[in-house]
């Protein structure tokens, strides 16, 4: 094997705080999922289109664990280590934290499952704490509803995504591990809030978005993301001075690296939202499909056959 490739592949940044958090999140979810599985054993109805999937569905566990694996890859694999040397690696890392891991975690509906995964002694006080904090009349619920309303979340998301691409902010993140961690945490949290509205995961404290609303919300992420990618891809000079001082590998110049990063953010980055929108469109069409048929006298009249949709 090429020694440089070997060196890259063996560059893992094992961070105890991340390992512990991910291990804890995984353990609690698995415990909760098994608990729910045991409770519903033999009583599960077969899935019918249009009905919500049970919390203990196998795909939810798989989705959650794959989401955790993507976070592990983003924060500890060579993608993280090389992100200080290659801008496009940094971009891939951000895509994993913003567009891949959050929806995978949220479609698993983690809050409810994880509550069931807590030890018995803890479940009661934590559950009571949540019900108090999220009670219909509580101030904390009102505050949370306001700061996580779809409009505010969209605005925060744009500020965070575009703001961290400011040269001073980005260079600061590359020069300081602490700032870099803040950058990743803010990307992840704001993306979780964004995908929360799209997936409809619990706790449901907002008025439930209809499928059409969700499609529009998902597509609203594309313009700011795409514009940032286009600016990076077509810039004529290096934007981030930090990479100019760092030795290059694989003969990838600073400008080529920057263009690749811009294209990654622009095309695969936007594709993720388009894929999500397509999934929602297919759900919307399925919903239409399940509506009861119109009585024949409504659609088979002469007027309706001659000019469908035209009302008298």
């Amino acid at each position, binding site marked *: 094997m090429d020694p*440089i490739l070997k060196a890259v592949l063996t560059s*893992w940044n*094992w961070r105890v705080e991340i390992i512990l958090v991910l291990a804890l999140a995984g353990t609690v979810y698995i415990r909760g999922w098994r608990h729910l599985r045991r409770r519903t054993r033999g009583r599960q109805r077969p899935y019918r289109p249009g009905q919500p999937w049970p919390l203990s569905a196998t795909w939810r566990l798989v989705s959650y664990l794959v989401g955790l694996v993507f976070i592990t890859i983003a924060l500890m694999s060579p993608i993280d280590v090389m992100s200080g040397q290659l801008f496009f690696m940094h971009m891939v890392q951000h895509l994993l934290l913003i567009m891949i891991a959050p929806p995978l975690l949220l479609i698993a509906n983690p809050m409810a499952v994880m509550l069931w995964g807590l030890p018995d002694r803890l479940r009661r*006080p934590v559950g009571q704490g949540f019900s108090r904090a999220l009670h219909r009349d509580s101030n904390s619920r009102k505050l949370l509803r306001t700061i996580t309303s779809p409009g505010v979340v969209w605005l925060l998301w744009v500020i965070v995504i575009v703001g961290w691409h400011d040269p001073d902010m980005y260079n600061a993140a590359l020069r300081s591990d602490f700032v870099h961690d803040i950058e990743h945490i803010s990307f992840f949290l704001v993306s979780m809030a964004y995908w929360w509205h799209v997936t409809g995961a619990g706790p449901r404290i907002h008025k439930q978005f209809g499928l059409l609303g969700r499609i529009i919300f998902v597509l609203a992420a594309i313009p700011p993301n795409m514009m940032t990618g286009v600016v990076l891809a077509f810039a004529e000079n290096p934007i981030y001075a930090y990479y100019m001082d760092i030795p290059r590998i694989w003969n990838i110049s600073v400008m080529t690296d920057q263009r690749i990063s811009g294209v990654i953010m622009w095309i695969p980055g936007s594709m993720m939202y388009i894929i999500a929108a397509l999934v929602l469109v297919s759900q919307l069409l399925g919903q239409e499909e399940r509506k009861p048929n119109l009585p024949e006298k409504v659609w088979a009249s002469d007027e309706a056959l001659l000019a469908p949709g035209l009302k008298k």
Partner: protein
Amino acid sequence: MSIKVLLKNHHRPKRRLLAWLALALLLWGTAARAAWAHGGGTVHIAGEVAGPYRVTVWVAPNEVEAGKKLHFTVAVVRPENNQPVLDAQVMVQVTAVGDDTAVLSGPATTQQAVNKLFYEADFKAPQNPGEYQVQTRVSGSEGEGEVLFVLPIKPASGSNFLVIGLIGLVVIGGLGLLLNQRREPGRRAD
């Protein structure tokens, strides 16, 4: 008793808690070294010629404080193709400006590095603040060379209030939870 057996024992919560703590410490032990040796920091030498090589040196943290951690990252490349050199010997030596006696000295290696394309070394910064000269000597099959730069070391600042605050919050949260649990049986009796 093995950790596995302890974790399986559902009737002894204290032992289970101890086992989880032991597991956490074990994880900490294996991972802490790698976390300590993470790169980053400020570039002090950018692609300067050192004999047959070009060398880049950066230091973390960005502002080094007396008696606190001091981390060097060194990249060695061949000037003709800019490809990393992975089999060189790199030695870092820190001396007070105007005094040739080495205050700190040690090898930077790829084994200590998180990014295996670089050479890294960890030290504890000198106790006395002031200006220090850092000499990075690189030797390999193609020859040897060195680069020098001056590193200012600031007086040590006070405690890290952010960390203390976070630990305080965790402790208060834990105590609150404990008190809440103790109160719980009485409430049920009502």
